[in-house]
């Protein structure tokens, strides 16, 4: 079977609304990390012009899994996801996300230390996302990680979705944690309602979309952590 991806670009005007412009001015932002969801990536000329008028420099990149410059995916939720040199990343005062919804800008909130300014070109709305928005999730993530470290029986969730499947990398857990017993559970879209049928699992490791280990924590009564964090224990515990 062949596959055709059609990115369905937004056809309306993409520009910063008045509230966004005023906020940028008030904050005296000089260097802005500019990212967007794919529908808006090829239509950012007006936004760039508006930022130029405010004398704001744009710093951006093409994250490794994406197809175009400025594009942000929901799974770009780690500090190194943006494919941007540390030197450039450090210069960014704040991020500007162009698009609607919270899914994509939350990726920046999870992975980056700076404030995220969101400009929705469809609803012409401005909002700001900060570390406070994800405070509870981060606390739960830490709690689940500590539980993982002290657990013996661990359930590893592996998806068969080709784009998300990380079975081979998941097997590395056995080398990293030889004292634990890992049980591998396979699914397509994760069936959260089935988790309770395996009460011997003390904690779960998610190897599918990394957003599951963050956004869907409430679905895992026993707690869940992401594979990348489990494999990079020292970095995660910081």
């Amino acid at each position, binding site marked *: 079977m062949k*596959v055709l991806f059609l*990115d369905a670009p937004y056809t309306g005007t993409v520009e910063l609304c008045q509230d966004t412009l005023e906020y940028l001015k008030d904050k005296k932002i000089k260097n802005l990390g500019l990212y967007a969801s794919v529908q808006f990536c090829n239509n950012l000329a007006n936004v760039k012009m508006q930022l130029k008028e405010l004398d704001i420099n744009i710093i951006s990149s093409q994250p490794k899994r994406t197809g175009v410059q400025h594009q942000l*995916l929901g799974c770009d939720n780690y500090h190194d996801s943006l494919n941007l040199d540390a030197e450039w990343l450090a210069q960014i005062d704040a991020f500007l996300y162009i698009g609607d919804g919270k899914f994509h800008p939350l990726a920046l909130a999870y992975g980056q230390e700076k404030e995220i300014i969101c400009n929705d070109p469809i609803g012409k709305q401005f909002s700001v996302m900060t570390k406070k928005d994800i405070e509870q999730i981060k606390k739960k993530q830490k709690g689940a990680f500590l539980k993982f470290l002290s657990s013996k029986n661990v359930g590893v969730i592996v998806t068969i979705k080709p784009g998300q499947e990380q079975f081979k990398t998941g097997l590395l857990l056995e080398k990293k944690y030889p004292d634990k017993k890992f049980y591998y559970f396979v699914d397509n879209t994760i069936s959260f309602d089935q988790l309770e049928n395996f009460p011997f699992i003390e904690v779960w490791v998610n190897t599918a979309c990394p957003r599951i280990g963050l956004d869907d924590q409430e679905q895992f009564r026993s707690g869940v952590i992401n594979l990348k964090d489990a494999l990079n224990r020292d970095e995660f515990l910081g």
Partner: protein
Amino acid sequence: MTLYNSKFEKAIERIKQEQAKTVCIQLPDGMKPQAKEIEEAITKETGARVLIWLGSNFGACDVPLGLDRLGVDLLISWGHNKFHKLEGW
């Protein structure tokens, strides 16, 4: 199809080029209400049988499996561009 350019012509061109007899369309949630119009338009333009994917469309990482068993020749996944998978995220 009012707010977004659905690239419908590109879809039709590809169906004809592949001589696809059975096509599955996977739509983002925002386009799902337009499935009726898309299904009818593709059928009219190409004569292909159109199957509408009911499930998720989280991204280009979320391509439906098992469509070969239904004889699907071409999957058209709307709303995303190509995804470059990385091992270990």
